[in-house]
């Protein structure tokens, strides 16, 4: 009997290690593949030049990097504050009335909408109205996607602040809005984490951009104009038959992954060894 | 479920009941010695035993207070225990005092002892009532004691008057006076015990 227990224990350990390996191998192979194929095109020109013509040499992804950064900035400007404050509402105000759970539910629904559908929304509202793909449409689409992610995680972060802190503040005769700010200050790390993760999440989006920001071979020329982005270019160049475009797509993928990993590293740095609310 | 404190309280109660019967026996023995002309030599032992018991009651009361911080009826019981135990101890002490008077004065067979013996009967009844009132926590019985105290006081005063008017035999009147004095003290303690019983049950403290 004892032997059986020991064997089954060992088997279990082996099983989990194998599962871990199966999870890690594809991840590492993707990273390795992208790094090895992408690194060859990364040079100064890659960051400063416009995309090359098919079968031409040189050029870069400068406008796509610029576009992605712009789209992330604009969508953050839209999605973060709205998400943050609806998170505050859910956690700090929605508890005592029935709107809180309604907002919460809507957030969950919004989070579950496929990104392409969000793209269609922005397409209908903005692209059709202005008769042009635009940075604005892309920002709105991505920003809309951020709202539920940020609001739900913010609400969780605020709820993780012990109620005793809230009571302490209110019992001192501190007004509700000021108390909410105090609670946010206590959860600032968790909120920063949530915001960064939401940014990382939308940085990798392609589908809504096809319908909204469109693509451009030129530098940014206004919020009402289309703009190139890394994800769109990965898709566009990656599916092309031209070798130099395919190489550019590998480079773009490497940069994109570097950005997302960088954000995740920043999150790790923020949350290291600390309680979520401290 | 029995409380831990109850063990201490029950022990206190048992000790007080022991003191109650012992002190009644002691007083009865001393009065017997006076009225029937004995020596009452057993009274000394009883008085000493009562004193020892009184110390034990005090110690145990203190211990219960320190250990369990009694409140309400528990607290009142312990507070009253001091007074009641002291009362029983004094009964014994005065019984011994009476016996000592007899030792000093010797044979009193020729004296008219009826007045003192009558008063002693009242006093003994008061002792019995105080003991019963405590044993049964009987407030009504306890409240009857003070009226009898007046009878004893009056008897004591009358005797003093008689002695001052210098009637009769000096030995007889002096011994009678002393014994009456002790009976009067016993009666006071019976009254105090009655008041303590009242306090245990009702929480009403004696006012005057």
């Amino acid at each position, binding site marked *: 009997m004892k032997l059986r227990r020991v064997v089954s224990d060992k088997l279990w350990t082996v099983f989990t290690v194998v599962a871990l390996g199966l999870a890690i191998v594809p991840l590492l192979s993707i990273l390795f593949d992208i790094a090895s194929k992408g690194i060859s095109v990364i040079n100064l020109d890659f960051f400063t030049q416009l995309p090359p013509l098919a079968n031409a040499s040189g050029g870069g992804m400068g406008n796509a990097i610029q576009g992605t950064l712009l789209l992330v900035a604009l969508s953050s400007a839209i999605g973060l504050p709205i998400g943050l404050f609806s998170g505050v509402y859910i956690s700090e105000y929605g508890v005592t009335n029935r709107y809180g759970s309604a907002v919460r539910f809507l957030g969950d629904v919004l989070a579950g909408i496929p990104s392409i559908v969000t793209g269609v929304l922005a397409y209908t509202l903005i692209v059709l109205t202005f008769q042009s793909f635009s940075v604005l449409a892309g920002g709105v689409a991505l920003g809309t996607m951020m709202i539920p992610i940020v609001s739900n995680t913010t609400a969780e972060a605020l709820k993780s602040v012990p109620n*005793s802190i809230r009571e302490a503040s209110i019992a*001192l*005769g501190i007004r509700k809005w000021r108390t909410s700010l*105090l609670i946010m*200050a*206590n959860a600032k790390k968790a909120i920063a984490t949530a915001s960064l993760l939401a940014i990382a999440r939308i940085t990798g989006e392609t589908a809504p951009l096809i319908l909204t920001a469109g693509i451009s071979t030129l530098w940014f020329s206004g919020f009402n104009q289309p703009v190139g982005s890394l994800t769109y270019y990965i898709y566009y160049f990656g599916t092309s038959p031209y070798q130099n475009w395919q190489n550019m797509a590998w480079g773009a993928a490497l940069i994109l992954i570097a950005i997302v990993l960088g954000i995740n590293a920043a999150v790790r740095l923020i949350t290291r060894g600390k309680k979520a609310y401290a | 479920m029995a409380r831990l404190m109850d063990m201490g309280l029950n022990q206190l109660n048992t000790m007080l009941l022991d003191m109650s019967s012992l002190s009644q026996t002691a007083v009865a023995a001393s009065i017997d010695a006076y009225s029937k002309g004995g020596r009452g030599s057993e009274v000394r032992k009883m008085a000493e035993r009562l004193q020892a018991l009184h110390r034990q009651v005090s110690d145990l009361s203190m211990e219960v207070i320190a250990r369990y911080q009694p*409140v309400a009826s528990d607290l009142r019981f312990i507070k009253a225990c001091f007074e009641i135990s002291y009362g029983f101890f004094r009964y014994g002490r005065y019984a011994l005092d009476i016996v000592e008077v007899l030792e000093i004065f010797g044979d009193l067979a020729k004296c008219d002892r009826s007045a003192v013996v009558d008063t002693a009967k009242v006093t003994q009844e008061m002792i019995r009532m105080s003991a019963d009132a405590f044993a049964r926590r009987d407030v009504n019985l306890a409240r009857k004691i003070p009226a009898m*105290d007046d009878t004893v006081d009056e008897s004591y005063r009358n005797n003093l008057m008689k002695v001052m008017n210098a009637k009769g035999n000096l030995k007889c009147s002096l011994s009678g006076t002393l014994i009456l004095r002790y009976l009067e003290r016993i009666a*006071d303690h019976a009254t105090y015990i009655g008041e303590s019983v009242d306090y245990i049950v009702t*929480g009403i403290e004696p006012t005057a």
Partner: protein
Amino acid sequence: MLESVTSLDVEERQRLEPHDALETKMEVVGLDAWYSTKQALVDVNLNVRSNKVTAIIGPSGCGKSTLIRCLNRMHELVPGSRVTGSVLLDGKNIYGSDLDAVDVRRRVGMVFQKPNPFPNMSIADNVTAGLKLAGVKDESSMKEVERRTLERVGLWDEVKDDLKRSGASLSGGQQQRLCIARALAIEPEVLLMDEPCSALDPTATAKIEQLITSLKQTYTVVIVTHNMQQAARIADYTAFMYLGKLIEYDETTTLFENPRQELTERYITGKFG
């Protein structure tokens, strides 16, 4: 009886216990409180006397915490809660339309069961949090408030060199005194304490008890405690609650020596249930 026991005469007693001369600081009148459909307080009437320590005792769930939380309108923060009846503070109903809950809480401060200093603030900032978060800007007076209040709770000598340290770095007893200092810094008139010592060791408890006793010179103190001996030690008046009702309310010595209600007697002697 020949000797009369000397005792206080009637006049003397009245001088020592000026019952009628006592000022009422807060008056609870016909107070009912609910959590959703569950009634937590049933027709509670209570006079909280000025500059006295009033203790509320009772078994768990008797409504003592609910009652104290109704005295500064903290009860209403619980979703679905409800209050009827009135609580008068200096004769004015704190549930009336002319008083704001925020103002009530500034006049009736509160200290909680578990010490809850703001973890993201220094010791000094914790003390002045109530002032700063209410918009008081005067930086120079803050130093003065910090020192005076920390001295008041006997914490100044222990922390004067670490005022910038986090309030959460203090020991439990120190944290609780810091919380009392924080409550006192906004100069309330009444201080409510909800089992302030239940998370503390005996030494820290003794310090808080001494502090409470000294506070009544300036403040009116209401304390909820599950520790009857604590109520007996520090309270001038004690209220006993059971199943949401105020069963008995009297001077502490009377309540603990000679309670009038059978229920009180059974609870305080430990013969309950």
